[in-house]
């Protein structure tokens, strides 16, 4: 049932004016079903190790100009769709920060190209498409020209629940030639509390609105019932509606561009191109590994503490937990990379459970920033890396009942460890400039929402509504880790999005009407120490005005422990903490022009000393659950610094001087850690190094090292005794117990290391 080419592909005809004729299955290439295409592709890959069994990239070799032109044109269409479609949205997350991306897939669901933006989705949409194929949507649900599908179910292909995908199948004549996918980060999808990365949910039923590879429209129009569900199921229906239109508009732009491309080059050449582009992506990944890494085995681990004994709302979650996120990375002689997480903890009653697809998506976003940044980023790279995210663990639970709302808190510590492993390889190979010791972990520092008081809502005619959500994305500017040749980037990096952007305060205040930002300042002593220090984090202070029914919470790591270390003698950055002040005298201070807090310095200038309040809560844990806030209450939060590289005593004096003068470190910390002594004129921001005293202090620190340290044997005996007694807290007990239940292999390695009997268990 092919359509006349003049009708379908007339450049003068817009999509809306076309008649979208139905197509009978099979809809795959050359009379195949999609399942047959998927099965054959997987078989060829298994037999040859190459995508679709391609021995040679014929198009690329015979006509490289056309091949590169087609790739550029495809990617250009994706970027163009993103840049245009984001203006359809109204959410600052999408419009201001650009938390969206578009990608194109083969009919089997393999990513070919991706736009700029949150490229963590280069692979996740792939899993959703493959799910639809394996569930035989082709015959059962139907896949037709003009159809629209939606997924945000992490268990089937997504990163976190508030990332919402729109899929559009692209037909040419009566064949499905590709899929377009657009994804945006929603500020709210319902759920048990306000916010887009919840802290309180412990199971699926508390996560909010799920679309599980759902058909949500046909003939290029969304179903009425789907739109009604969205409007009634989320707290910010306008953002939901406009973001959905943004995704759909972008997908339709991509469809137009592909139709035009096929009209020019012919459908057979287009098909060849899709497969070659994926295989080239696979080959690029292998060659990059051989170019930059050193073969061998790398081992690292990440940790995520959850201090919920006195905080969680649900009985089953009221415990301290620690997630264990080990990685073993092997580079073989062919340039193949294997990433194994054997020994990860089991999933738990928290929103940090991370589906396999989410882990894979995060792997791609990290690889594209560390090793693949000039290559063709697609699922070819996926096929070049062999991963093991063990089933039944927090990194691959295989249990849709769990909460998957905030898997980033599992992802960040894991890829901190991956970062150190990759960097060891770069260093050994001589590429010191590519070393990155890690990053400050960009969590959603503040979330929640409130309602404008009637009097204020009336006074602001263009207010977006009485309800205002809190979801600022300024936390996407954290400190980057040091490299082996320079300091880390200060307050300017986010692991999940290589285009990190702080955004404008004013832009956020246009949405968060009742949440006023009082100050933003560099937060001293957040950067990880080292010969090259990590990038610094910053601190913010908010108050509430003109509002009621306000609840806010903070999601933050590192909190009560670090997630990982620095490298080569460098240290991790400072951990976060929380301060909030209730029932304050801020209103009086604003009238009488008295000073009010702009920051919090634990040693001098605490918030407690700068404002009167009925209650000030100061907690070493930067994470707290939703609590009520009144007008003129204060809330402080901070972003984190990156880890350092190298022995701090190797840091040049002039760099330490700059650190003090730029508020990266305070003089007391500098003297203790770097052994640099001098006088600081804070008013003129000038530090004068006392060189003789510095030489003396550095020598003193070296002598202290000799005096304080112990031999490995002494350390081993002491630590082993603690292992035998289980001398650790209940969160660490949770971790060891869980790992021993999940992985006999890791348990046996543990027993062997500490020379324990086979019967030992924590």
């Amino acid at each position, binding site marked *: 049932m092919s359509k006349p080419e003049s009708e379908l592909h007339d450049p003068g005809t817009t999509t809306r004016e076309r008649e979208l004729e139905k197509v009978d299955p099979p809809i795959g290439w050359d009379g195949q079903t999609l399942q047959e295409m998927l099965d054959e592709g997987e078989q060829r890959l298994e037999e040859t190790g190459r995508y679709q069994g391609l021995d040679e990239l014929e198009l690329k070799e015979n006509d490289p100009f056309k091949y590169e032109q087609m790739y550029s044109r495809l990617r250009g269409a994706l970027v163009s769709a993103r840049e245009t479609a984001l203006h359809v949205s109204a959410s600052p997350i999408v419009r201001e920060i650009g938390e969206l991306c578009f990608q194109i897939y083969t009919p089997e669901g393999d990513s070919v190209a991706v736009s700029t933006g949150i490229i963590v989705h280069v692979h996740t949409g792939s899993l959703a498409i493959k799910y639809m194929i394996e569930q035989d949507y082709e015959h059962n649900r139907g896949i037709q020209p003009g159809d629209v599908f939606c997924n945000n179910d992490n268990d089937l292909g997504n990163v976190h629940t508030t990332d919402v995908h729109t899929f559009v199948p692209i037909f040419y004549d009566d064949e499905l030639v590709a899929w377009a996918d657009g994804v945006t980060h929603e500020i709210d999808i319902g759920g048990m509390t306000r916010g887009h990365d919840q802290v309180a949910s412990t199971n699926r039923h508390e996560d909010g609105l799920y679309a599980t590879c759902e058909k949500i429209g046909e003939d290029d129009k969304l179903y009425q019932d789907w739109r009604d569900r969205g409007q009634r199921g989320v707290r910010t229906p306008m953002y939901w509606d406009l973001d959905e239109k943004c995704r759909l508009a972008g997908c339709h732009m991509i469809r137009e561009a592909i139709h035009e491309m096929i009209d020019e080059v012919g459908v057979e050449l287009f098909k060849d191109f899709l497969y070659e582009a994926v295989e080239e992506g696979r080959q690029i990944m292998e060659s990059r590994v*051989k*170019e*930059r890494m*050193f*073969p061998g*085995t*790398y*081992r*690292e681990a990440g940790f995520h503490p959850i*201090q919920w004994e006195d905080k969680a709302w649900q009985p089953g979650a009221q415990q301290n937990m*620690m997630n264990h996120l080990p990685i073993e990375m092997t580079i073989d*002689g062919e340039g193949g990379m294997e990433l194994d997480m054997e020994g990860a903890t089991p999933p738990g009653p928290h929103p940090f459970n991370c589906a396999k697809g989410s882990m894979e998506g995060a792997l791609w976003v990290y690889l594209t920033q560390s090793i693949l*940044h000039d290559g063709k980023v697609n699922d070819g790279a996926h096929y070049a890396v062999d991963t093991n995210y063990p089933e039944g663990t927090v990194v691959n639970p295989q249990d849709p009942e769990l909460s998957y709302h905030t898997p980033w808190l599992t992802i960040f510590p894991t890829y901190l460890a991956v970062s*150190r492993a990759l960097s*060891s390889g770069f*260093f050994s190979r*001589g*590429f010191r400039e590519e070393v990155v010791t890690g990053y400050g972990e960009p969590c959603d520092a503040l979330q929640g929402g409130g309602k404008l008081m009637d009097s204020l809502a009336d006074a602001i005619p263009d207010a977006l509504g009485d309800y205002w959500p809190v979801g600022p994305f300024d936390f996407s500017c954290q400190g980057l880790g040091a490299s*082996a*040749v*320079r300091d880390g980037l200060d307050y300017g990096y986010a692991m999940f999005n290589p285009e990190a952007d702080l955004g404008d305060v004013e832009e956020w205040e246009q949405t968060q009407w009742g949440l006023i930002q009082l100050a933003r300042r560099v937060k001293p*002593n957040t950067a990880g*120490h080292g010969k*090259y220090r990590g990038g610094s984090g910053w601190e913010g202070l908010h108050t509430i005005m003109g509002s009621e029914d306000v609840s806010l919470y903070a999601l933050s790591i590192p909190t*009560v*422990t670090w997630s*990982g*270390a620095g490298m*080569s*003698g460098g240290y991790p950055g*400072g*951990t976060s903490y929380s301060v909030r002040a209730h029932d304050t005298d801020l209103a009086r201070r604003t009238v009488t022009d008295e000073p009010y807090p702009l920051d919090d310095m*634990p040693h001098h200038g605490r918030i407690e000393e700068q404002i009167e309040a009925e209650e000030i809560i100061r907690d070493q844990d930067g994470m707290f659950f939703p609590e009520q806030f009144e007008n003129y209450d204060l809330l402080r939060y901070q972003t984190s610094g990156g880890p350092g590289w*190298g*022995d*701090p*005593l190797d840091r*040049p004096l002039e760099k330490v001087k700059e650190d003090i003068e730029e508020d990266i470190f*305070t003089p007391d*910390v500098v003297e*203790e*850690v770097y052994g640099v002594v001098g006088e600081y004129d804070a008013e003129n921001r000038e530090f004068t190094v006392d060189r003789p005293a510095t030489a003396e202090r550095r020598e003193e620190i070296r002598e202290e*090292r*000799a005096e*304080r*340290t*112990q*031999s*490995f044997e002494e*350390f081993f005996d002491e*630590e082993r005794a*603690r*292992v035998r007694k289980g*001398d*650790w807290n209940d*969160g*660490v007990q949770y971790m060891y117990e869980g790992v021993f239940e999940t992985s006999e292999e890791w348990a046996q390695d*543990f027993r062997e*290391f*500490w020379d324990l009997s086979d019967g030992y268990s924590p």
Partner: protein
Amino acid sequence: MTDLEQARVESLIDGELSWNELRNEVLPDPKDPDRFEKTRAVLQERVDWDDPILVPLNDHLYVVGTDEGRVIRTDCGEDLCDAGENWKRSCQVFVREDEDEFEELYEEYMHVDPDWAFELREWYCPECYQLLDVDAVPVGYPVLTPFEPDIDTFYEEWQGRPAPDREGDQAAD
């Protein structure tokens, strides 16, 4: 393609290049294919021994070929262990785990909650007390071997030559 002269590699190792130089001259792809050898030559020149450096592991640690086999050596010349072993087992270690010890490095509230049984393990050269590595782990965590390089695969299959400590073996063959 980047193609750094030997002197520029020395400057890179010494951290002397500005961001503009790094961004425009060092970071771009593809990388100079002989960077490994250039780096190895600079490092070899700077140490006081003649045994060949096979793999630099970090700022002060190398895998070195000797007549008695491959060892892990610090740049002050201290041999920690055989190349296949965990070098941290030969280090002096300081375990930092209480509040006072953390607050030598971090401000109050900006370090591990002491209730969490979490440690900073600092690994020092037993000869010169250079800080070689810092681990941040819970109590009882095994001491991982961070990197086991496959040296012969690298030299023979990726570089197309025997490892520097095996060159004589090949000549004898």
